[in-house]
């Protein structure tokens, strides 16, 4: 996994908070895609990291679009490139969870419905962090945010199920704590056509109230506790779990984060129960889909309209 800095596409000097997981993830994604890439960013911490005019940290052509339209912007650029006969450039959209789960959901759904040709990486820090930590539909239950001072009452929206329902060729969860897995998924997505979606959990040091050096640890725990399992969905149907977790109690994940410091033992128990349920369901989906779709090798079930 030797990381040669000269091969990096992301540049230093950006304005992310110290220890932020965004640039860790963006770095790994961009490095895998390489220089033949066009990036779309929308308002989010990713747009901050991309840099203030006239400076940029993205070492490839990039486009700042509006909050809700990361997907259609990427679709448009991708179509325009094809129109010009350029077919070796990957179009990548970076959007936050607010821009994906909430305000960008309709636009993303439309693009996915048409199976437009781009990779969409949702950098999920479970809240509107850039604007000072407000709740989003990705914020987990019981979590503190500025707008849920006594804990979020809603559940985290299941974006992977929504994306799977579009039957796009590829959707995957990924974590910065598993760089090899993340980069392999990006590489795999790069080799496909159509709408490819990567749900990348990226802890926010400020919003999650963790120490600046804890993003890798907390990310790792999110996977090992099953709160955020690593898996892929091919064609919206065939599930594949990529990492057998250590099944560490969720409490060890939660106690590290100040945003959960107020929760009760019952709430911790409830999170554990829900985590176990979701894991069991994921496992059974994987098993069921393996029986049903054995042999289908992740080729697009539907081909792009054009």
């Amino acid at each position, binding site marked *: *996994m030797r990381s040669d800095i000269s091969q990096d596409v992301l540049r230093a000097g950006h304005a992310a908070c*110290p220890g932020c997981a965004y640039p860790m993830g963006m770095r790994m994604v961009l490095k895998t895609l390489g220089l033949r890439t066009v990036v779309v960013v929308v308002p989010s911490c990713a747009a901050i990291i991309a840099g203030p005019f006239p400076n940029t940290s993205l070492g490839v052509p990039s486009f700042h679009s509006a909050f809700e339209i990361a997907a259609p912007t990427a679709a448009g650029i991708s179509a325009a490139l094809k129109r010009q006969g350029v077919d070796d450039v990957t179009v990548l959209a970076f959007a936050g969870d607010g821009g994906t789960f909430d305000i960008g959901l309709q636009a993303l759904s439309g693009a996915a419905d048409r199976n437009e040709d781009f990779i969409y990486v949702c950098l999920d820090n479970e809240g509107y962090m850039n604007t000072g930590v407000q709740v989003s539909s990705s914020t987990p239950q019981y979590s503190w945010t500025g707008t849920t001072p006594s804990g979020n009452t809603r559940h985290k929206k299941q974006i992977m199920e929504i994306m799977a329902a579009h039957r796009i060729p590829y959707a995957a969860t990924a974590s910065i704590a598993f760089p090899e897995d993340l980069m392999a998924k990006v590489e795999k997505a790069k080799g496909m056509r159509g709408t490819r979606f990567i749900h990348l959990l990226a802890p926010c040091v400020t919003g999650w109230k963790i120490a600046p*050096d804890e993003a890798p640890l907390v990310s790792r725990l999110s996977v090992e506790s099953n709160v955020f399992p690593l898996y892929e969905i091919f064609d919206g149907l065939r599930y594949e779990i990529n990492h057998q977790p250590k099944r560490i109690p969720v409490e060890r994940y939660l106690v590290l984060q100040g945003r959960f410091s107020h929760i009760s033992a019952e709430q911790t128990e409830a999170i554990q129960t829900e985590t176990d349920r979701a894991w069991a369901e994921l496992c059974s989906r994987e098993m069921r889909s393996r029986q049903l779709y054995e042999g289908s090798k992740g080729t697009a079930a539907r081909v792009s309209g054009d």
Partner: protein
Amino acid sequence: MSYHTFLDPELIIPISRLSTEAFKTGSWSRNRPVFEEKNSPCRVGCPNANNIATAMYMASKGDYDGALAAFLEESPLPSVCGRVCNHACQSKCNRGDHDGSVQIRAMERAASDFGSARPEMLTDAGKGLPVAVIGSGPAGLAAAYHLARMGHPVRLIEARERLGGLLTWGIPGYRLPEEILNRDLKRILSLDIEAVTNRPVDRAGLDQLLGSHRAVLLATGTWAPTPMGIPGEELGGVCPGLDFLLNDALQAQVKGRRVIVIGGGNTAIDAARVAVRNGAAKVDILYRPDLEALPDSDDEVREAEEEGVHRTAAHPVEFVGEQGRVSAVLCKEIERADGIDCCRSKAAPDEFSCDLVITAIGQSLGASSLYSELDMDRGRIAADRQGRTVRTGLYIAGDAGSLRATVVEAMASGKRAAVAIHHDLTGKTDSVSDAFAGGRETFSLHELFRPGPIRDPNVTAEINRYSYLTAVATQPQSAPNLDANLRVSGFQEVAGGLDEGGAEAEAGRCFYCGTCIGCDLCATFCPEVSMGQTNGKTAYEADPDHCKGCGACASVCVRGVVTMGDEL
């Protein structure tokens, strides 16, 4: 107007053409990562400071030559220690509480079984400065080996007909086969060492050697028995453990007899197992829990018990006899002061009848004119911590100068004495104490001769939460022992060795604490694209212009090499 100019995007939207690298975000940081390789806890735990982490890393890649070379940096006897060392290193392993210590001793054996390597020369500064070493046990062998590596012509003088000291004459072949010991001996003798056997050195000989050589090392061991000091010890059929192990005729006498061995250590257990192999009808060990340390490794006790040896906690007070031959051992009731002994002991009857008694309660220096002008300390020859005696030019190493009677301690003291001699003869005295690990006697010779600054011996690598979280729990690898029924009929090696695959897997369990293996995690995780190796250097360094001091790099360094430095 052409189509192209009409659509020039720069006319309608701003385009960033400069890099954010212009922003020196390094000014945000309060501290910076520090790359510093450190001692692993096992290395500090090893009295000989073996470079275990490097050896494990080599072995994990299937490079047994490299693994063996790493052991040879500090030790001339990896084949021996891979079998009989009491492996103090293993109890310090950071994996111990996680899923079981890395089986370092088994790995040392694997390195010596599968690898081949030549000892590395350290300097030729010892050229023309001859040294004589008296005694060829582990202490003398180690001293000769290291002195030769520092360029000294070495004369190794042994009283008995073969080299090896207690490795040859004491430790039986079922634990240390002769051909295995020979493997190490051959490697040692490939250096500039003139070995002379059948040459007991007396006082006149010593004085002569001190005249003909620039320094002389006494590594003569402790071969005199320690008497029990109880009535009846002079009876026929009572013999000291080492005499028994040395003497085939004595061993032949046990056939069909009831044998009692008194003592708790290696000699007692080995005497009992040798008695079993010579056809004794019954072998009992009586150990005195209040006086004897239990043997360092439980394995040996277990193996002896599997072979039919019984152990009983008892305190012998008298040997009783009939017609001048021992017939029973009388014991007093033992005080069970500490809990550990109670669990092991069966209720001890007062009288154990027997045909033969082997006493093995420890060795003594014995009287010799060699030592007459030297100071004594608790029955051993007194010296400074590097083995300098009161007599100029005369040094001491091994059991003769220490109560810690193990192969590795003897070997380590031989190394310390070798360096003392080298430094005294070459007039170099600096930096020795710097190379002592952990403020103890543990001493890395390789570190002393490695170019560059000496690794801080008092700093042990500390691993972190991420280390354990990312480590997949795996059971230590093991190899089966020879079946107990087969063992007792001969002197075949009891302990099985790992096969190459098993050894590779076992080495892969190591964290390589304190040793950078270039895993690159620190660089991979740096959100500032600032951590990396510069100009082909192996060390990782943060770019001070952009490192924000977040500590992510240190948090993922599972070996404790990268840590965060003090506030700037």
